[in-house]
């Protein structure tokens, strides 16, 4: 599977991407690789702005036709904004995972050094590809 991994972003092992801005606010979404594996997204459960989160804490839930998956906060901080468009248009994550399909913004004082760069994330995505389904399992199907 070929998927896009922009070099200017940072990543987590759990398939979130992070874009940092100068004002200490980071934008978070899920990677192109992750949306491919999940399949069509049909519902996004967003947190309230103002919620305090710690790194690796579940802060949103995305549901595809196959399964529900947590989105984990990449950093410690406070959620300052969520992408309200996703409530009615969860498919934005499939169509444009790095721009229109962003999920939330976090105000943080953490630096990005603890996160993966594009090259390191690519190794994880390749590893899981060879693993077949990785942790993203299929629901039971008709037949």
């Amino acid at each position, binding site marked *: 599977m070929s998927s896009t991994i922009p070099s200017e972003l940072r990543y987590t092992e759990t398939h979130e991407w992070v874009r940092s801005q100068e004002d200490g606010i980071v934008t978070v979404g899920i990677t192109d690789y992750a949306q491919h594996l999940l*399949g*069509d997204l*049909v*519902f996004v*459960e967003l947190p309230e702005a103002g919620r305090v989160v710690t790194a690796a804490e579940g802060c949103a*839930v995305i*549901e595809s*036709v*196959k*399964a*529900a998956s947590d989105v984990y906060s990449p950093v410690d901080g406070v959620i300052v904004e969520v992408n309200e468009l996703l*409530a009615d248009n969860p*498919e934005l994550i499939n169509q444009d995972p790095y721009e229109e399909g962003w999920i939330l913004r976090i105000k943080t004082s953490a630096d990005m050094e603890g996160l993966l760069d594009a090259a390191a994330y690519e190794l994880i995505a390749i590893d899981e590809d060879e693993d077949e389904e990785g942790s993203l399992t*299929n*629901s*039971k*199907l*008709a*037949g």
Partner: protein
Amino acid sequence: MAKRTPLYARHLALRAKLVDFGGWDMPLHYGSQLQEHHQVRNAAGLFDVSHMTIIDFPGPAPARALLRYLLANDVARLGPGKALYTCMLNDAGGVIDDLIVYGRGETGYRLVLNAATRDKDLAWIAPLAERFNASWRERGDLAMLAVQGPEALAKLEAVLDAETLHAVRASRRFHAVEGKDLFIARTGYTGEDGVEIMLAAENAPVLWDGLLAAGVAPCGLGARDTLRLEAGMSLYGSDMDETTTPLVSGLGWTVAWQPPERDFIGRAALEQQRAGGISQTLIGLVLEERGVLRSHQTVYDGDREIGMTTSGAFSPSLNRGIALARVAAGIGGGCQVDVRGKRLPAQVVKPPFVSRPL
């Protein structure tokens, strides 16, 4: 290694997402499960269902006597060219499998069973067939394609000769037409009009190509599952299994109680259950707010736990979470479903969730 249908190379060429299903490498989708779902509801879709188990019983007798004992529905109702949906039960009335049996007049009967249950089905049927002195043959040499959707019959023009096409269009739902090389049944698992076509495996790729060229969209098992759920059709292993009877699975209508003198496997257990009162029922649930229902979620009526979802999905047609649930009998209009620790209100409905003029 997983088994492959005669269309495996076609799925690879179309870049299908393949998954293991009941020991078979099958297409989950060809890019977008949602688009494939809508394609079937609005136009026509093509499914490779060659993994399903096909068994022929030459007949009519003694196959007729065997099947009247083996199946909870009654093949005595089955004229030539007609199809019947039925459960195959164990002695306790539990469902070993659900299947379609086709009457073929002097030729006998054809059964289409689930792929994932093949081994246990054959192990169950073989000794009974022997007892009834009925011969049978598994048709691993056949492939099966489903063409489903409001435009399905129109699209068949591209691949059928005029005579066969006329016969198919003149046929009614749950009837089959047999040509020289094709067995075409007006059946399906989507709630839409359409056909299921059985044919020699070596001829399947040409038929597949012809239908795609006519504009029928390839669809995977993912869309097949949401389509059947919207249509309120049961999935074996989820909505019923060997621990549940048809009477608590929304399948009481498939049990032929008449004539009373017909003995079939499971009958005594079902009669006992019926006499004692049916304590559970299979209902439809529609989530009142946005969200997705899944199988194995607990259903509440206020504080009281009343049952469990057996199948659940996001309904692309309704834009809502829907589910089938087995709950205590006599539940009213509303309930709540535990979705990841939150109790979400759901409306109780009688399936199908989506019904089509047929």
